[in-house]
């Protein structure tokens, strides 16, 4: 099936305006039109009371069965604290070369770390995180270039250090992945 577009779906209490703001950059990086919409999902079934966090692995599977199509790369966007069973938290997760991914703004905001709110920084971090997860969905692995958006980030400080675009090597790899089909 041919890929037609990228779909960004917001879930829960999420400002859909944020999606519209990052859509042009995503489209520019991956050369596909970007659609935005809001999704309906009862998030309580993914809540783990012992960890007080939401299970990203099961959430990912749910989005795959209920929201994904073969014509689109679908990225689910949240404002909840995500985890996967082995890690204490994640910013986002995606299947390498897969059709779905998730990302959350929960740990991207300054106030989470006791710093003054800054909407501009939050938007910047969110843009990078969304492009990063989509990069994985387009077959890109972590990059060693310190400013490439595909650089692995485990802290927000790491996210702040990189650009919201792919480095030349990852760009070439993206083109080659598209050509290979």
């Amino acid at each position: 099936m041919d890929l037609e577009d990228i779909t960004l779906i917001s879930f829960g209490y999420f400002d859909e305006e944020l999606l519209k703001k990052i859509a042009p950059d995503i489209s520019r990086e991956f050369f596909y039109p970007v659609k935005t919409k809001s999704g309906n999902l009862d998030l309580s079934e993914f809540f783990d009371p012992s960890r007080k966090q939401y299970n990203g692995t099961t959430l990912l599977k749910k989005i795959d069965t209920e929201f994904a199509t073969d014509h689109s790369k679908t990225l689910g966007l949240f404002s909840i604290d995500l985890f996967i069973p082995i890690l204490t938290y994640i910013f986002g997760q995606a299947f390498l070369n897969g059709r779905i991914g998730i990302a959350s703004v929960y740990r991207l905001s300054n106030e989470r770390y006791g710093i003054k709110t800054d909407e501009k920084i939050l938007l910047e971090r969110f843009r990078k995180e969304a492009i990063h997860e989509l990069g994985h969905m387009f077959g890109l692995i972590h990059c060693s270039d310190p400013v490439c958006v595909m650089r692995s980030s485990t802290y927000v400080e790491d996210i702040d250090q990189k650009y919201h675009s792919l480095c030349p090597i990852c760009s070439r790899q993206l083109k080659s992945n598209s050509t290979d089909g």
Partner: protein
Amino acid sequence: MARKISILIVDDEESVRDSLYNWFIEDGYRVACAGDAKKALSILESDPYDIILADIKMLGMDGLEMLRRIKSIRKESIVIMMTAFATVDTAVQALKDGAYDYVTKPFDPDDLSHLIRNASKQISLAEENELLREKVVSLENVENLVGSSDAMRRVLKEIESVAQSNASVIITGESGTGKELVARAIHANSPRRFFPLVSVHCGALTESLLESELFGHEKGAFTGAVFNRKGRFEMADSGTIFLDEIATISPKMQVELLRVLETKSFVRVGGNKEITSDFRVICATNRDLKSMVEKGLFREDLYYRLNVVNIHVPPLRERIEDIPQLVDYFIGKYCATMNKPLITLESGVLKRLEEFSFPGNIRELENMIERAIVVGNGRKITLKDLPLGKETISTTVESLEDLEKNHISHILTKYSWNISAAAKALKVDRVTLYNKIKKYDLSQR
């Protein structure tokens, strides 16, 4: 490009396997999963993964038992143990059994990245180390000792049998026969090969310089000693020290050397701290040490301390059959160094080389070939390129007596010690030849 590090995840919880799998795949590692220890061991039989990340508590064989089995098969495997129920006892046990690290689930993403990055770095370093070791061994191989004559085979056999021991060795032989190469071959084949081989040319140094060179000195020990300096014995710790031209050292240094060899400890010049060093000693000389002992020129106790094993390197004239091989070796060596195509010998040249006495031994032959490649026409080495017609001056041949001794020895070897034939060739009678053999202490080796 660096190869992909491979990771095997062993956990009976599918969600853990999936999360780790996705995490590492995004990092670009080659990843596989196993749901239990048995499956993991069967995977490892055919594919030795670089890093094994295993849960401790699993149904059937637990992680610790699996760790022990992995380590018994492949000691260098990096196994990281994971557990949701951390106790000090299990952590200590895992580390005692050879685990690389021990982590509690769930991990901080940054800790996991660091852990794997450090383990990968250790793998790359180990591989680099292995590569360098192989290089060192190939550089210092006995293969550098060219020759397949009986005499050379005997030397190689002696090197092989003595290399594994810690015994002191004296290498005797005329100048230019390759005594230092023999010392290097002994070191390169000994368990000390990954530690330094430190060479000291005793003949080139005055007594005080040799003392400072061997034992080192403290700052201010003498004029010019502006820094503390390690001595050669200290540098040779865990390795081998090669003392060339040992017969030239003064009586005072002989006493000091004996003391160091007996105690393996010494004090730097100008210092007062006792330093110990674990070294093996190999000496070389072109003199007859035994007769020097008899004449009182060399200490008997030191002689016996050094002469645990004696390897005699024969002069080139006693292994003429090695000349073609040596010529080929040097042609190959110098053509490669000078970036020239391989050249050959003009007919008749090899025969003349085999007839030549080579008082300077292999060093002389090597210099001759090098010179011929430099001055020759670049296609063939001709007689014109070799200084065989003129008597070459060797560093060892200084007196007429030496010259006479070498010539007689060469002729005797040439005629396989047939006294009549050799006397005829030398144009002397047999009695004279017998007297000369006795005078120069010549014998059929």
